[in-house]
């Protein structure tokens, strides 16, 4: 076990390499998921506070409808 962790004397180089990789990959994933959850929560709040969709979309749409990328 100790031999494995010692990595032939190169532990100071090998383990930080794996650690940095883990940090970057996990960190990116966590940041991505948090951003996604946050945006979805905002969307839900915004859609919830709007009046029923069909009527208000047709009335308020106009130039806004072109900006929308389509139904989700």
């Amino acid at each position: 076990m100790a031999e494995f962790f010692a990595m032939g004397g190169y532990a100071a180089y090998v383990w930080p390499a794996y650690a940095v990789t883990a940090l970057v990959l996990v960190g990116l994933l966590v940041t991505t998921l948090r951003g996604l959850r946050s945006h979805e929560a905002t969307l839900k709040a915004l859609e919830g506070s709007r009046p029923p969709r069909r009527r208000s979309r047709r009335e308020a749409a106009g130039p806004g409808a072109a900006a929308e990328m389509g139904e989700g």
Partner: protein
Amino acid sequence: MHRFANPARFLRIAAVILPWSAGLTVVLLVLGLYLSLFGSPPDYQQGETVRIMYIHVPAAWMSLFVYTNMAVAAAVGLVWKHPLADLFAKAAAPIGAGFTFVCLVTGSLWGAPMWGTWWVWDARLTSVLILFFLYLGYMALVNAFDDPERGIKAGNVLLLVGIVNVPIIKFSVDWWNTLHQPSSVIKMGGPSIAGPMLWPLLVMAMAFTAYFVTVVLLRVKSEIVARKVQTLRLNEARG
């Protein structure tokens, strides 16, 4: 317009792919790490530091792969004005930057004990550092504009200009006299690396690719939701 242009369809397809790519990422990472740390021998010259290679090389491959994908997306975005192409480029950038960073850092950690230096301004290392700056520059440029569409367009141009760096990186070890070693896997005549070392390398590369697919799909989804939020806010502001 290509059928994937419709974000609703994209979201449905992404919802199908995501659990598989995520699962594949986990399985391949576990297998790759096992092979890298336990299932492969130490090098006769480099000892256990060769295990850094199983991260360094796949990360380097990913840094080039992601950038190339982004450049293709940029071309599609500029020529066909495909909105998903633009979102893909923006979403992929941090992932590519992350892999490039990992490549540079693990390279230094490998270089210090084995080649006697943390850094050298040879053609390979310098051009990869430039690739890293290109990723960061792209991310800064896209976010610098008030109008997101202009930012995306500027970013697309930068991506296309920077694509010349990719073949430079690949052939740098052939064209110049570099401290970095020549190619041993992707070259004419096939890989010259030993079998027990090639397998962990390939599995880790596939693991990183599956990771990229997973995270980029999540990030594109996030961008789509963010744009919906912005559109809703604009509509509300218009009354």
